[in-house]
């Protein structure tokens, strides 16, 4: 007959080590299942650069393109629209685009390579809606002193003509400018930086 007394210390150790090793095994087994939710190789491959013809875009007109299933806005800004930009600075949350996303070569007052050509990812930085292009200057229900820009219908966020966000709206940042460069005067390629730029 073996000793009937219970070695509580050993029992605790065995319980704890079994639980720890079993728990570790469960976590390791969970990893593949969790990672199935990450973008698949097919989803990753779907995002190659696009080249678009901007020659037919008139002054003040906006044209949408799709890149990585995201809307790309290309706007041929008029001199009047450009002239309003610096005057909006006091009303903006991030007028110098310090906190916002854009390539280094677009971190300037007009947030673009050429002042008149605005290229941006047309997605509100609040919750990802596509803002409307409201170019008409004048009182609007959402802003009595509207100088043209973008207005998000979802949560009423407002941006100026350089897609810089106004203060006092839910969106935290200016809209994102994608990497792009001019192939020639009438074509831009979206998704690739200009030669020499990082």
């Amino acid at each position, binding site marked *: 007959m073996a000793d009937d007394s219970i070695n509580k210390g050993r029992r605790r150790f065995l319980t704890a080590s079994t639980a720890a090793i079993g728990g570790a095994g469960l976590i390791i087994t969970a990893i593949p299942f969790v990672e199935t*939710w990450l973008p*698949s190789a097919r989803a990753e491959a779907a995002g190659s650069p696009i080249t678009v013809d901007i020659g037919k875009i008139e002054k003040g007109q906006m044209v949408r393109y799709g890149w*990585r*299933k995201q809307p790309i806005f290309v706007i041929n800004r008029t001199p009047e629209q450009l002239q309003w930009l610096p005057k909006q600075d006091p009303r903006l949350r991030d007028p110098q685009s310090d906190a916002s996303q854009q390539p280094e070569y677009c971190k300037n007052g007009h947030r673009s390579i050429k002042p008149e050509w605005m290229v941006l990812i047309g997605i509100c*930085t609040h919750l990802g*809606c*596509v803002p409307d292009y409201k170019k008409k200057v004048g009182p609007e*229900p959402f802003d009595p002193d509207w100088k043209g820009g973008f207005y998000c219908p979802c*949560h009423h966020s407002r941006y100026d003509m350089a897609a810089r966000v106004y203060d006092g709206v839910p969106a935290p940042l200016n809209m994102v400018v994608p990497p792009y460069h001019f192939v020639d005067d009438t074509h831009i390629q979206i998704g690739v930086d200009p030669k020499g730029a990082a």
Partner: protein
Amino acid sequence: MGAFTEWFNERAPGLGAVYKKHMTEYYAPKNFNVMYYFGSFALLVLVNQIVTGIFLTMFYTPTAAGAFDSVQYIMRDVNWGWLVRYMHTTGASMFFIVVYLHMFRGLMYGSFKKPRELVWLLGMLIFLVLMAEAFMGYVLPWGNMSFWGAKVIITLFSAVPWFGHTLVTWIMGTFVPGDPTLNRFFALHVVALPLVLLMLVVLHLGALHEVGSNNPDGIEIKQHKGHDGHPLDGIPFHPYYTLKDLAGVGVFLIICAVIIFFAPSVGGFFLEHDNSIPANDLVTPATIKPVWYFSPFYAILRMIPSKGLGVLALAASIVVLFLVPWLDRGRVKSIRYRGLAYKIALAIFAIVFFLLGCIGADLTPGWIVGIFGPNADITTIENLFGRILVILYFAFFAFVWVYTFFGFERTKPVPERVITHA
């Protein structure tokens, strides 16, 4: 029949006992009023959602290319497909109506108070899973509102510090909602979440039947038992309450049938017309608003002028409901015997919840133009009004804690036995 029952009971002696415990010998207070219908209605709607949902999966295609067309196929070509789908969509909204009333009943009669805290917590978990279930179900038809709703709600998670954007991509499985998103939402909507929901419902009822039902007088019927050991103020759930509920179900189903047959979209509240347009990732619908049952919470998100704080407030508005049993320290359960200030506060809370819903449903711009004229500054007025409502929403919970914790509440004497109005 007798021989069969005997044969059966010998082999499964526990089942009869379970039936007795939860049906014929579950003593429920005899003074239930109309507010006590909504628990059984919720159960009925759950059964409806499962049955109609199973039939919908037989015809639905969970791919971005095929989903929208398969829903049109169900609506036009499948025999009675329109009925099955309208039963499912109407059921979704009715689910939230009965659940909101069920929760309001809990706040009225203190059904969350000791010893029923666990019942409340399990109920809140059901509410949470139900919201996830409803949201994912809403995405499946892959209309334009489905798509943008999915995008906005998933992007909420980008407010999480450090890895928010990775989390968003992980949930979507791609960079904008697409096939991977739709496939996983389908799996969660038809398999994973219903299983969790069913388990939680079993636990919710199990926890309730351990402690017994509360009642409009908010007193414990188990404190007065007869010679047979059963509560004097209790009656067996079956047949008394099954029959009472059956009568209620008759009325409830008439209301549901009127909606299903005559106004299945309920003026854009149960089904939104923007969702009759296929998903388009380059065009946002003119006004994005969630289905009505999310609109109060959505309004809280929208009224806060900061993304991080808005999402935090949205989360807090739901988390705070979990905490109600510990915020409300009052000993008296039922609103019948509670202090006047609690009655007023609860009434204001209900109105605030409703008005937040109106803001979230985008009804307020019309009201503002009606009151202040066409040149009114809608954004400023709506924000002012909405922010006051957000403050009032949270103030209810703060008030209840202060009112009960510091003993400001003056309650009326609670009767020993339930009051019946003969």
